[in-house]
């Protein structure tokens, strides 16, 4: 039972990063960025590719993250910049286009099969009072929380954060007040892309597998986590991610794997009916769709 709690939190920490990445994009740019599951996948698959090419694993991860930054800039160029003045669904469609593009580029590169990811962090487990806690998983939970805390601090207490929040409030007013959108917006894309890619790398380290489709399932759970927490709310996304992870693990434990989707999405549906703005969302929120 307590073991399931631990497993749920570990799985949840992956969702947390993806949910925070999505919530940054929607909270600041008012844009549900569907290419983020693609960034998650690129993080994992590109790391695997570079390791296969003979890179040492830290180097492989850095190389993968650099490529993800470049991809994030390309996505920004073709979605956010084009969308000004158009229907809100447009960038959503283009970002989905990018998800399909990234997946198929990786299929061309590595094939559509699942690939085994080497065990780079070693296999050390902590045993505390009869509980088995995977070392790599503990590291990723810690890393997720540290990253999220950093983002929250950056947004709240720095000059950069103030500029970003001004854009979230109203892009036009922010421009008049001297915020350079063409500099700040790409950094937001890079930040959310990096968060998702790091989640993908951690996923590969923990579950020792990568595939071009690994982003889809996690992306959907990440979106659910973001919605549960209330869009644009960073700490809400953390709670949402952990909650979804726990729900998933406990429903497998108690009801079997056939019922995972029913419980996870059922919970989400009930929540949306009872509180249409998410757990921690404000009742009246600007939104894109």
């Amino acid at each position: 039972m307590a073991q399931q709690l631990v497993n749920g939190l570990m799985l949840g920490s992956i969702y947390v990063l993806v949910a925070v990445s999505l919530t940054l994009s929607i909270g600041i740019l008012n844009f549900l960025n569907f290419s983020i599951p693609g960034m998650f996948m690129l993080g994992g698959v590109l790391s695997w590719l570079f390791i296969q090419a003979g890179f040492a694993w830290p180097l492989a991860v850095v190389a993968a993250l650099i490529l993800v930054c470049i991809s994030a800039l390309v996505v920004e160029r073709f979605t956010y910049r084009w969308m000004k003045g158009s229907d809100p669904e447009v960038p959503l469609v283009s970002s989905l286009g990018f998800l399909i593009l990234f997946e198929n580029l990786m299929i061309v590169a590595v094939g559509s099969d699942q690939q085994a990811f080497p065990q780079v962090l070693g296999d050390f487990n902590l045993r505390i009072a009869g509980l088995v806690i995977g070392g790599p998983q503990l590291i990723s939970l810690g890393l997720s929380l540290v990253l999220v805390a950093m983002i929250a601090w950056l947004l709240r207490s720095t000059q950069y954060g103030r500029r970003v929040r001004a854009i979230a409030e109203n892009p036009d007013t922010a421009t008049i007040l001297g915020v350079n959108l063409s500099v700040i917006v790409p950094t937001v894309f890079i930040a959310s892309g990096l968060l998702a890619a790091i989640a993908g790398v951690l996923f590969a380290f923990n579950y020792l597998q990568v595939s071009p489709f690994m982003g889809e399932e996690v992306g959907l759970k990440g979106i659910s986590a973001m919605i549960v927490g209330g869009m644009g709310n960073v700490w809400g996304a953390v709670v949402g991610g952990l909650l979804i992870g726990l729900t998933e693990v406990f429903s497998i434990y108690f009801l079997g794997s056939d019922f995972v989707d029913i419980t996870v999405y059922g919970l989400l549906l009930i929540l949306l009916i009872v509180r249409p703005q998410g757990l921690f969302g404000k009742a009246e929120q600007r939104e894109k769709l």
Partner: protein
Amino acid sequence: MSGYVEGILVLLAINVILAYAAALPLAGGQLNLGIAGFMAIGAYTSAYLSNEFALSLWLTIASGSLVAGLVALAIGLPILRAHGIYLALATFSLGEIIKAIFLNMDVVGGASGYAVLAYLESTAVWSIAAGVFLVMVFISQTRFFLYLTAIKNDATVTDLFGVNTKGIQLASFVLGACVAGIAGGVFAHLFSFVDAQYFSAQLNIFIALFVLLGGVQTILGPMFGALFFTLLPEILRFSNEWRFAVFAAVIILFMALRPEGVITSQLLRSIWRRRSVA
């Protein structure tokens, strides 16, 4: 006509029906990402009725559509309290739940799928799709469609003008589900087999893409979207493994050049004008 072409054309017919199922709520600004769920309800209901009671195909497909509409009516009342992206996610969850329920329902075969005894001819599929299209053309000429467009542009002002926005939105949601139910019934009897896995998240997203890429301003938009998404991957077949990458690049390009959707009312007007001048 070769079997290959016929196979693509019947798939196209089903996709056209699905595109209109999503287009109705979207014309009023509601993104329904649960269309595949309602399609599943239509498919299983009509398959069950034709297997167990040997009813005529038209009757079973109509009942499937009706049941999908009733479910939408029951769930629509609470679900439509959510707006925008929250509504999209609520409908998406609904679709996933419906799929998972059918996967675990042993009466209709559960995860191993459900064989259907009756069979629908290709020509019947095409006539049904044509029928749905004609009904949509009719709806697009009514005040109902005008209200939907008004709600999409500004729900508050439309409400102030005395239009029952909640009622109109619920009606478009339910009608969309009915149309999806028809697509389900046709699907079940065309392939003589229903597999719950088919009604996936991916299908839901693609149905939304049909409409968004084609455009919701005119009644031809969803048709174009369905054509584009069904035929382009086949046309690109020569490029083999690269075809979906090229396909995705074309989607991005189209949205960049035609952000309102490919077929807009302005485009149709300019074509019309050119023709009347000539």
